Structure formats: structure tokens, C-alpha cells
């Protein structure tokens, strides 16, 4: 075997896979032994150049996403993927949206008397103790309502109880979202809004039970 042939064979097979003729040449040719030894050294040093795969900095995705949006490659918002998304999905359901809108209108048009407990948390986030305090206020209001007009069969009371149930469901969804994403300010605002709606609804219900209006 000639040196050129050996080089090609060695480049192809490496030291471990050398055929007998190439191994024979290696034992006889000093130049090829040097070549093989040098390549072994290079291969060994090359392994030290390897770096552990690491995530690209967050700005790469931020820039990429902006570019994709600018080019119209991203065409729609992400599908439901988190607790917060489930709040949005819940709001999109037509009957819920209708009920929610109806409650809002009811609260604004009939009896806007927010409780002091709710007002106190209006500008603050609803995390931790504030959330618990709000829940306690609402529970007290609900208890007062259920001990009074809850058994009434009047159309208004039935509608109020139905709306209360809808708001309770919405609160449950919002609470779940806030638990999953406690720092999501928008989720907390929605939860606060849900609590506020419930307070307004209970105020309305209790006022109605006191005045006895149909």
C-alpha cells in the first residue's frame, strides 16, 4: 500500500477499522505513523471544543416572533394552552358572555352599591390575603342572601340565583387561572371583576328581598 492510499483508508476507517494492508503499511511507514498520531491528537482535542447545548437567550425568540408577525407568518393567537387561556375561552362561550353582559347591565342600571371590602381592593392586586378577605365578604353576603330570598320563587329571584351560579362558575375558572399564573395581572383583574360582579349581584338580590319588588 502507498502512503496516499493509506491516507484515504485511514481517513475513511480511522485507526480501529484499518484493514490488514493499511495496518501493515502503518507499521512500516514513519510518515504515516506521524500522520495517524497527529490526527488522533486533533480528534482528541476536538472533543474538548464541544459545548453543552444551551438555550438561546430569550431575546432570540422575542425578535423572531416579532419578525414572524411582521411578515404575517404567525396568523392567529395561540390556542387554549393555560389557565388564563381557559378564562378567555370561557368568556367566548355565547351564553356565558350574554349572562355576564346581563349581570353587568343589571349591576349598573339597578343598584350600584359596592361593598367597602371590595372597594378596598380595587386598586390592588387580588393575591394572597386580599383574595381571601374578598372571598370571606362574598361568603357572608351569600349566606345572608341564601337565608333570606334564596327560596323565593319570584322571577327576579330565580334569575338572580341563575346569574349567581354563572358568576360562581366564572370565579372558579378565574381562581384556577390566578393559581396557575399568580403574576398575571390581567388574570387577577378578571378575578377581581368576577368578585365585583358577584358582590353587585348579591347586593341587588338582597335589596330586592328587602323591598320585595317584582
Amino acid at each position: 500500500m502507498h502512503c496516499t492510499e493509506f491516507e484515504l483508508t485511514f481517513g475513511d476507517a480511522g485507526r480501529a477499522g484499518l484493514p490488514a494492508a493499511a495496518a501493515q503499511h502503518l507499521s512500516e511507514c514513519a510518515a504515516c505513523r506521524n500522520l495517524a498520531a497527529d490526527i488522533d491528537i486533533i480528534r482528541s482535542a476536538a472533543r474538548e471544543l464541544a459545548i453543552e447545548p444551551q438555550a438561546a437567550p430569550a431575546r432570540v425568540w422575542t425578535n423572531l416572533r416579532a419578525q414572524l408577525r411582521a411578515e404575517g407568518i404567525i396568523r392567529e393567537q395561540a390556542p387554549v394552552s393555560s389557565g388564563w387561556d381557559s378564562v378567555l375561552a370561557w368568556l367566548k362561550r355565547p351564553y356565558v358572555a350574554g349572562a355576564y353582559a346581563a349581570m353587568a347591565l343589571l349591576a349598573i342600571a339597578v343598584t350600584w352599591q359596592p361593598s367597602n371590602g371590595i372597594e378596598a381592593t380595587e386598586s390592588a392586586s387580588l393575591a394572597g390575603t386580599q383574595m381571601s378577605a374578598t372571598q370571606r365578604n362574598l361568603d357572608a353576603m351569600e349566606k345572608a342572601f341564601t337565608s333570606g330570598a334564596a327560596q323565593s320563587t319570584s322571577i327576579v329571584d330565580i334569575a338572580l340565583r341563575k346569574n349567581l351560579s354563572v358568576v360562581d362558575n366564572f370565579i372558579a375558572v378565574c381562581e384556577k387561572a390566578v393559581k396557575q399564573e399568580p403574576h398575571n395581572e390581567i388574570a387577577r383583574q378578571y378575578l377581581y371583576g368576577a368578585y365585583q360582579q358577584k358582590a353587585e349581584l348579591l347586593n341587588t338580590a338582597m335589596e330586592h328581598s328587602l323591598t320585595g319588588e317584582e
Partner: protein
Amino acid sequence: MARTRQAGTGELNEAEAIRRAQQGDEFAFEFLYRMHNRRVYALCLRMVGRTAEAEDLTQEAFLQLFRKIGTFRGESAFSTWLHRLSVNVVLMRLRKKQVAESSLEETTEPDEETGGPRRDFGSPDPLLTGSVDRINLQRAVEQLPPGYRAVFELHDVQGYEHNEIADIMGCSIGNSKSQLHKARTRLRELLHEQERDRAREARQAAKEVEQES
């Protein structure tokens, strides 16, 4: 690498993410990016050596990928397709840079003795034993032509097999082997040149000390 991820409404896997990305779904793009960005970024970082440039190239590779994702039909693995794109993006950058740098070097840094580009000929190559460290090798790798460098990086540094490199580079396995051998041989020459430079500098320094005394 995990190919699925909990996605709120159920498991999202790579195939589903590709399908949704083809419809312009942002979450799917992000899913694919998060799944593959580590290897792409590592490849870019190894090939160019500078984080800012590696970030730029990673972004460029994914941008090209997502621009073309509508054409992906699954004939090859998605990761192979992405790595091929990434290597191409990096090679294009290196080739542009090489043209700019080599023309600059040739006009501004002539060899002291000949007046032409710096080059050493003649002396027989001694064994490299003990003289190759990370820094020397890295310096030599940076001088390789982009094609050699890519194959060397993929095979000897990152541990890809020749069949994988052939897929990524769009060449035959034989071509990958041949390129690798040429890359190693060229590296050997460059490392010997480095040794000769160091020896020459040592002799020069010794001569200066002798003259001063």
C-alpha cells in the same frame, strides 16, 4: 429530546406542532422553537464563536425554517431539515466573512520576507504530540474553509455520524468522509505552521536577548 409537551388541552407532539405551524399558529411555532433551539444555537455558537453572531444566526435559521414550513412534507426528519438550514445559514455567513477577511489580510498583512501572503514551506512536519490545546486548535479551525469546518465541527466536535452529516449537508457519505479527512489534514498543516511560528518567535526573542547582552 422530548417530542411531546403538555399543552393545556392535551399532548402536543412535533408532527401536530408542524401541522399547526403550517396554519400560522403562534403556539406551534414557539413549541418547535423551544424543542430545537438548543442544538441550533450550540451549532451556531461553535461555528462562529461569538454569542451575538450565534444569536443572529439562530434567529435567521428559524426564520428561514418558518418561512418555508408550509413546504415541509415530512420526507426527511424535521430536525435534519432544520439542521441543514442552520448549517447553510452559518456557511453562507462564514463564506462571506472569509472573502472579506482574506482579501483584507492579503492586502494589509504581507509576509515580512516575501512580500506576499504569509506562508511557510519546506521543513518536514514533526509530531504534534503535546502541542495541541483548545486555543491552538480553535485558532486553526477558524482558518479552515467553511465546508471543511462544517464537517469537522459536526463530526469531530459534535459527534454526528457521516450519514447524518450527509443528510444535513446534502452530500454523499463518501463526500462527508473525504471532506473530514481534508479538514483534518489541513488542520494538521495549520497546527504545524503555528508551531513553526512559535519556534521562530522564540528564536527571535533569544536573538534579541543575546544582542542586548
